[in-house]
């Protein structure tokens, strides 16, 4: 900016001195060229502050991960050998990987389906504003803003088998107590419940917005035609909010495939690997065992999983999502 002003100042002054007519036209040309370049480069100047970190920390590492996944690099030694598809072969046949895939799918679908259903139901409770509705919204949303690590600690108290709140509630309702995070059967359930509690407020806020955008006149017309409440929900609300559902499903899937914090704090992938997801496996192999090759092979699997999911959902969305 400053350069621009400085230059136009000096070029304003030059035509005044008669002696340098030839020079001034040259300067005029230069000035025009500069202004032209300056305008053209606006895009460049505005984009560079974002493009530099994007290139350094997203695009280059992505290519790097892909390349490392074909080597036997262990971070400490400077040597690395090309091993072809060995890492992938090794990863795909290992029991730990297959279990991690199953755990990831279980976790993602379990949290996602419930979050979307619950979020929508709770958003229905906020149709048209009323006194206190904002307070309730913020209360339900508050777990989302609190750091996962901080609330994970409270939840490890809730899940404590002997004196925790969860078993206290279960036994007082007449059910048998569970081992929660201490048993490989229930540990994933515990993580899923925690994640739903933490994330459902986010989904709900989006649904509140979506429900507000459904034209009220449609409901009135349907009401006059004698449509039941369920049918109004089924044939008006659901189709009209389907873009939001679609968006939330994708975004939530992508975030839940990357779950890490609560697993690291509450179970460390245990007991017996029952809560080891793909990302946790990646972390263990890369930053605990320093097996960069297999780790990045897992990373590529995560990447492909998310790409497939995105493409698939785009295809599906064309069939049943209604964009008006």
């Amino acid at each position: 900016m400053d350069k621009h002003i400085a230059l136009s100042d000096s070029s304003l002054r030059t035509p005044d001195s008669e002696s340098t007519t030839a020079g001034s036209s040259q300067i005029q040309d230069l000035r025009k060229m500069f202004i032209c370049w300056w305008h053209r480069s606006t895009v460049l100047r505005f984009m560079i502050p974002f493009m530099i970190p994007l290139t350094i920390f997203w695009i280059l590492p992505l290519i790097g991960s892909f390349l490392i996944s074909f080597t036997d690099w262990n971070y400490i030694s400077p040597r690395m050998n090309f091993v072809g598809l060995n890492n992938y072969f090794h990863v795909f046949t290992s029991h730990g990987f297959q279990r991690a895939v199953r755990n990831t799918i279980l976790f993602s679908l379990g949290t996602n389906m419930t979050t979307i259903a619950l979020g929508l139901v709770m958003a229905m409770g906020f149709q048209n504003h009323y006194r206190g509705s904002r307070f309730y919204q913020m209360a339900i949303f508050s777990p989302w803003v609190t750091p996962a690590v901080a609330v994970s600690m409270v939840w490890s108290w809730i899940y404590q088998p002997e004196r925790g709140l969860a078993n206290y509630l279960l036994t007082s309702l007449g059910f048998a107590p569970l081992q929660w995070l201490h048993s490989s059967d229930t540990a994933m359930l515990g993580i899923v419940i925690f994640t739903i509690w933490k994330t459902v407020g986010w989904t709900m806020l989006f649904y509140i917005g979506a429900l507000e955008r459904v034209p009220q006149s449609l409901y009135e017309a349907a009401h006059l035609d004698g449509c039941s409440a369920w049918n109004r929900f089924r044939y008006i609300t659901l189709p009209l909010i389907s873009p939001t559902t679609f968006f939330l499903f994708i975004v939530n899937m992508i975030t839940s495939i990357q779950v890490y914090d609560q697993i690291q704090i509450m179970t460390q992938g245990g007991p017996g690997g029952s809560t080891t997801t793909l990302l946790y496996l990646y972390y263990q192999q890369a930053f605990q065992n320093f097996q960069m090759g297999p780790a990045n092979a897992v990373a590529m699997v995560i990447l492909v999983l998310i790409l497939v999911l995105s493409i698939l959902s785009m295809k599906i969305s064309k069939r049943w999502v209604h964009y008006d």
Partner: protein
Amino acid sequence: MQSHILKTWFFHLTRHFIMGSISFIFLFPLLWMVLGGFKTNNEIWQQPYRLLPGNWHFTDVFNTARGIQFGPYIFNSLLVGIVGSAATILCAALFAYALVFVKGRFHHRLFWLVLVTYMLPSAVTYVPSYVLLARMNLLDSLTGLMFSNLASVFAVFFLRQSFLKMNYEYIEAAQMDGASHLAILRHVVYPMNKPAFITVGLLTFVQNYSSYMWPSIILSSREKLLVSQGLRQFFIQEGAYGMNWSEVMLGSTLTVIPILVIFALGQRWFTTGITEDSGLK
């Protein structure tokens, strides 16, 4: 008529009862955490539970809060949260502005690049990013952390959606008056998209403030940890059983307070930001 009034009254009461109970369930763990800081270890574990502590020893709690030395962690997190987010939003706003308001040949392809990056899991890039940071001598430094978080594809996405809804005539009018692009961004685009800016700011802040995995990979010295690593440190150093739960709860509470304060301040813009500018029709 009388029965009609009674009916709506009943409806309101039921609604408040249901939403109130749901809110209580969602707030309970947080409430327990805050109150746990005031309790002794035995009080936390005793059954039947008591929500309120036996004594409100404010001075004791204040002294413990000083004793556990959480200040540096909170300071680091706030630094990364505020400075890091401000820089992130500045970069994202410039980029989104160029995408939307300055005509260019490659915009379409660039936006596709951004869209694809949006779907990528950041964790996939951790190993090479770690190596690159090491090469730049930025490991174990907050600068390195902020720099590596600088490109927020989400922020670009969100701001772009909001910018697209603007009336282009405002930009043209400002250009007629000879305003530079930077001035237009500052004096026209920013005020007209304030809810979107505040929403993105708050979300980025929360993300940076409480981030856990990436910082625990690249930060190692104790005085540089963020709150999440600090809490974890605290959690493991005494072992799960000998752990002083009331101190853990107090530490957790301290980390949550700054976030709640910032959200309470931005709450008004935030909900409209999400419900109206969420990038969806």
